[in-house]
């Protein structure tokens, strides 16, 4: 009961921090997709790139998030504002699932289909955009889905460096030993993660080739 009361009272602040949270996750996901899909294609088509690209994305993933925020602090322009820093860090974390699933999706296309396409005289670009990517799209999307769900959780930590988002409630709640405050951050974050998971999962099934 108390929690509901608290939510009703802090409606506006919750909404504002949720929007901030969405902004951090949304921008970083877009960047990760814009960067990760080409890198995934690169490593799927040219095996030389496979190890360095997937290897680096893997290593980034192992850096604890608070430490990563710290590492990025001295970077010019990025370190000047907390939200830029948070977005860059979230982007770096989101890269691995996007790259890996793009790679897996493209490598998973039936080789006979690719050979038929080449034999018919499709150019590399036509093969990529009309055959490989459409056939890999649901696998790529499931990578994006993982990236988004992880980002929603990770973005709460961005509040530690003052980037805002629902983590503000959580950190405040921890400092004040106030469960209601913690829940005010945790519940909307969980709802965001679940709806993103559900929405993208639905899209993934829609786009699955027969």
């Amino acid at each position, binding site marked *: 009961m108390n929690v509901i009361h608290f939510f009703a009272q802090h409606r506006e602040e919750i909404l504002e921090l949720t929007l901030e949270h969405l902004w951090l996750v949304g921008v970083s996901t877009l960047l990760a997709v814009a960067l990760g899909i080409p890198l995934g294609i690169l490593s799927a088509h040219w095996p030389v790139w496979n190890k360095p690209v997937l290897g680096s994305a893997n290593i980034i993933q192992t850096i604890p998030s608070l430490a990563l925020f710290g590492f990025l602090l001295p970077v010019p322009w990025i370190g000047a504002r907390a939200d830029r820093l948070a977005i860059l860090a979230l982007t770096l974390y989101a890269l691995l699932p996007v790259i890996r699933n793009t790679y897996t999706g493209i490598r998973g296309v039936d080789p*006979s289909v*690719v050979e038929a396409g080449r*034999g*018919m005289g499709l150019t590399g670009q036509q093969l990529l955009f*009309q*055959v490989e990517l459409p*056939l890999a799209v649901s696998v790529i999307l499931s990578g994006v889905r993982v990236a988004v769900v992880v980002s929603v959780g990770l973005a709460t930590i961005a509040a530690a460096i003052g980037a805002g988002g629902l983590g503000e409630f959580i950190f405040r709640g921890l400092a004040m030993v106030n469960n209601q405050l913690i829940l005010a951050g945790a519940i909307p974050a969980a709802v965001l993660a679940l709806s993103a998971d559900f929405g993208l999962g639905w899209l993934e099934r829609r786009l699955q080739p*027969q």
Partner: protein
Amino acid sequence: MEPNATNGAVIEFRDVVYVLPNGQLLLRGLNLQVQRGETLVLLGRSGSGKTTSLKLINRLLKPSGGEVRVDGADTAKSDVIRLRRSIGYVIQDIGLFPHLTVARNIGLVPRIEGWNSDRIDVRVAELLQLVGLDGDVASRYPHQLSGGQRQRVGVARALAADPSIMLMDEPFGALDALTRDQLQREFLALQRRLNKTVVFVTHDLREALRLGTRIALMEAGQLVTVLSPQDFLQSSDPLAAAYVQAFGEGLNSVATRGTE
């Protein structure tokens, strides 16, 4: 139909060598000419180099030595995309695009070539009829078709832009005996109408005798001999004789084409 020398060779292998990056020699100096309108069958066991030879024609593979000429031009110097679009290509696994309907599969190259959609629709309907499929198949997806239907679509797709050359790599190999027999019969009927230059890969002597106007027997990356179906049955070449022996009785009735 005896290949006519004055027509000139449509496809010509000149001392073609193909070596894998790991050094394995797949083709050791192939010399072979394919004449206009003939069905040349490349016969041999797995690893004999027949599929390699086929892929050298549309430059899915590049020769390590020698040259492959198509319509008088060295393929190494041709525009590879133009070359491939001028050659129909059918493979055993068919490789239909699973995310496209039958009509889109067949119409893909015409669409890329910039045909308008009316012309593509007409062509698709024409081709479906040609390969013996109902028009209502056009809107289906490959996974909704039977194996025989899929292979027919594969042939229709290869014919879409009306190439003068067709390359067929064991196109009927994965089909059941009845369907294969039917498709072989249809191939012969189709070939009488269209008169394409066909290079056909198989390891089945019966199929080679039935469909080929000439049979090129390959073994371990080398061409052993090129013979008409009748001559093949009478051949004193030990490998050809071994094939005839292995496939047993009744081959004479199959070998009909070279005498048409």
